[in-house]
């Protein structure tokens, strides 16, 4: 089980919220297939809450586990709370820091989720909400 914490392996073997939502509120992708890792998040947003978040990852165990943990943390939360989930929050959910060299997994899945949110804002809520949201100075990264 490598230098990974058991929680990572648990998420790898029994991941949460795998898949894609049909006609989602937002889609976000990050990473590049040729350099290893790709993540995709689809979200369904309703009344500023994350009703559903599903993900797919091609990549190392850390990326898969991070996607799983992240999806679990954001489901049912308000958009604002969801956007606040940090790298540290994911690491904590995974039992502690990832092995050296694996931190990119956190960026990968957060990127994909944030893009999905932005996609939603762009499509559904229009420029005003984005402005409003930005006003909170939330930084997901």
């Amino acid at each position, binding site marked *: 089980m*490598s230098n990974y914490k058991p929680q990572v392996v648990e998420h*790898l073997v029994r*991941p949460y919220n795998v898949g894609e939502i049909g006609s989602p509120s937002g889609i976000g*992708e990050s990473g590049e297939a040729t350099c290893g890792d790709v993540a995709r998040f689809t979200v369904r947003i309703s009344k500023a809450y994350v009703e559903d978040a599903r993900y797919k990852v091609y990549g*190392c165990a850390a990326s898969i586990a991070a996607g799983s943990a992240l999806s679990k943390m954001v489901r049912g939360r308000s958009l604002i709370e969801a956007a606040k989930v940090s790298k540290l929050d994911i690491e904590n959910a995974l039992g502690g820091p990832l092995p050296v060299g694996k931190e990119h997994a956190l960026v990968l899945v957060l990127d994909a989720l944030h893009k999905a949110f932005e996609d939603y804002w762009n499509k559904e809520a229009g420029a005003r909400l984005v402005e409003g949201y930005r006003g909170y100075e939330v930084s997901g990264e």
Partner: protein
Amino acid sequence: MPNDYVYLDHAATTPLDERVLDVMLPHLSRVASGNPSSLHTPGAVAREAIEEARESVARLVGAWPDEIVFTSGGTESDNMAVLGLASVDPRKKHLVVSAIEHPAVRGTVEHLEAKGYEVTRIGVDMDGFISPGCFADALRQDTALAAVLWASNEVGTLQPIEQLAEICCEKGVPLHADAVQVAGRTSMDVSRVPISTLALSAHKLYGPQGVGALYVRRGIKLRPAFFGGGQEKGLRSGTENVAGIAGFGVAARCAFDELEERVAHEETLRNTLIRGTLEMPCIHLNGHRKRRLSNNVHLSVEGVEAESLVLFLDALGYAVGSGSACASNSANHKASPVLLAMGRPEKEALSAVRVTVGKDTTQVQIRGFLEAFSVAIAQLRELSPLYASKS
């Protein structure tokens, strides 16, 4: 690890044979062997154990005992051979190697390259073979040595070493062969095949880690690997690892005695594995279907990244390798240069796993593995944004 954990990564390292441990234990006891350089009885006991092991290792490859130098492993043997042969004639500044050498040879050659040597790297075809023609053409008057990985630790391809050795012999170029993976998996006879040096490692044939040997043909004078007490005829100073060397001796003897049955057994399992995995969708076998190591199955699994597959299988109770074990623990997963040299796209090279059976692997284990494998890849592909788009 659960008791029924199945080890299918024999190319990375092999479990220690109980017969090997039995011979090592007396040397690891409190009333143990002395220093083989000592004059007294404990020293003599140690010395005898080493000379007996030297005979067994020599027999495995068809050498004279005085042609065997014990080292700390395959890596040291490869380093010693390449650096040693390169410095025999300082006027010769050209090296010929295959493009798919093990890092122990590749790295040493790169070191020499940085010091001013010119290097010709012989490419391989899509099965991983180097062409004897290209090889012959590359050898020059000023070629200090050629080095060839007899059997690839990754894709398992067996090079036509006898033919390459003949070519070297005709052109008067010394040939170093890395036989770490092939030893104990093919009958070897350096008395017939004109190889100059040959690297071996104990832990790849059910012996202990940290012990290896270099065959050095009579008449070839290498420079010492270490300076010191003058052990191993001055070629490799340092107090000998008596228990380890004795263990290597037994491991070599067993490998010699059981060669045919081991190969037959491994090939049966290997073929079951190849058939079973190739029935699954979008899986490719790397390396030649037949001219490969008896225990090696190397697969590219579309839509699945190697590390996550290895760890998934580990969680299901199966150990397999991802590409080359040597590189797989590095922080950033890099595509195997061997697969790239075989013309595979980078993405496929990142999706490669290596399943290597051993003399004690069973058909039941293989059947269990095939099931676990199909579960693992199905689930990881469900997760994969790259594969999903296909199905």
